[in-house]
């Protein structure tokens, strides 16, 4: 009996050192004897209060992180206003036009290339020639003033990116840009975080596909992607260890 009480005292002492130890009495009696300020319930209050304090300190960080990762700040799913409501769904899925018909430097340059007015006019000089929504295209053709598309994807200038390298190593458009061929208006599909780039640079076998499917807007990974991916990584000579060097992207 005496020993058990001593143990309680020790425990009390270790955790809530609010006053002098209670002595070897039961707690109720202890109160009466020593004019104790805190009731036993205070223990729970103190715990809750500490927890609350902790949360209040963490909350701004939590909100901060959530905000930074939210579509509101990353622009994911944003559909910027464009001078012409151009539809990839119509032109890519509907008409079967290859990405390279319009984004013609994507295979051999850092910049993917945006179609000049002339490219639209190869078809729209003959069809839909009086559609009102194509008036900006015709005006641009008449005056020589370029169409001003709003960027959907935009990395900060301190990051170097190169389309040709990715395309020639078997990374497909839809891995980074989502199902463009099914978008009536182009929206941003990926956040462009550094961690997003690194996720693939650490383990490209999760995403790499055969070169002949790079431009395929409907490609889906096979069941054994990891096995095939590893083979392709080897075949295309992807330098996995090197791809996380800071100087690859910040040069």
């Amino acid at each position, binding site marked *: 009996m005496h020993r058990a009480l001593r143990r309680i005292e020790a425990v009390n002492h270790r955790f809530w050192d609010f006053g002098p130890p209670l002595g070897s009495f039961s707690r109720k009696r202890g109160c009466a004897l020593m004019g104790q300020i805190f009731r036993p319930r205070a223990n729970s209050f103190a715990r809750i209060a500490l927890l609350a304090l902790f949360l209040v300190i963490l909350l701004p960080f939590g909100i901060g992180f959530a905000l930074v990762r939210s579509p509101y700040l990353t622009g994911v799913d944003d559909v910027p206003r464009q001078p012409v409501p151009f539809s990839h769904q119509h032109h890519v899925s509907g008409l079967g036009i*290859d990405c390279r*018909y319009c984004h*013609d430097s994507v295979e051999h340059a850092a910049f993917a290339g945006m179609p000049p007015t002339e490219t639209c006019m190869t078809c729209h000089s*003959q*069809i839909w020639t009086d559609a009102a929504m194509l008036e900006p295209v015709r005006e641009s053709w008449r005056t020589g003033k370029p169409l*001003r598309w709003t960027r959907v994807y935009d990395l*900060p*200038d*301190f990051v170097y990116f190169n389309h040709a390298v990715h395309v020639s190593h078997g990374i497909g458009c839809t891995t980074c840009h989502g199902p463009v061929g099914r978008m009536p208006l182009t929206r941003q599909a990926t956040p462009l975080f550094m961690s997003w780039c690194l996720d693939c640079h650490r383990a490209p076998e999760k995403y790499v596909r055969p070169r002949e499917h790079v431009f395929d807007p409907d490609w889906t990974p096979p069941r054994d992607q990891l096995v095939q991916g590893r083979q392709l990584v080897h075949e295309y000579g992807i330098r996995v260890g090197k791809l996380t060097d800071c100087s690859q992207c910040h040069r």
Partner: protein
Amino acid sequence: MRPAKRGFRRLSILLGMLVPLLLCGCERDMADQPKYEPLEAAAIFPNDQSARPLVEGTVARDAVLEPRPERSPLPMTEAVLKRGRERYDIYCSPCHGRTGDGEGMIPERGFPRPPSYHSDRLRNAPDSHYYDVITEGFGIMFSYANRVAPEDRWAIVAYIRALQLSQHATRDDVREAGLEDKLREAK
């Protein structure tokens, strides 16, 4: 001063110095540097174009200066044909169709129908005719010179020749290629 109070003061000075340092992280000046990304707008140039159009008469450093030959300078290898097919499918097939019969997707939507490559006139046209059509355009067809490099133009010509052969192959051609079984299967 009591030690506790002094400690508190030191702590707040330290924090006061650290917090502005942390706030520096919010400054993202380098995210938009004073340089032009490709095709970025620039108020100081005509039409607000930072990408300046080439001066008339510019010759590319690696341009071929000899006049283009009458016949394709490329050998008819499998690699050339593959390249030709790829380029043809990207740039020509929307209108001329995968087999070159002029039944592409775009004519189906109301674009004037281009002629079939399998007519006698076009089958007898020299290689250079196709090359010139790609370079300069033809009638209502626009030029594709800015998107199809000279080498690729010859590859496309090679592939069109193969398409023309394929549509006029005889039984003997099939036997020579050892594909009779396939033909029977297809039937």
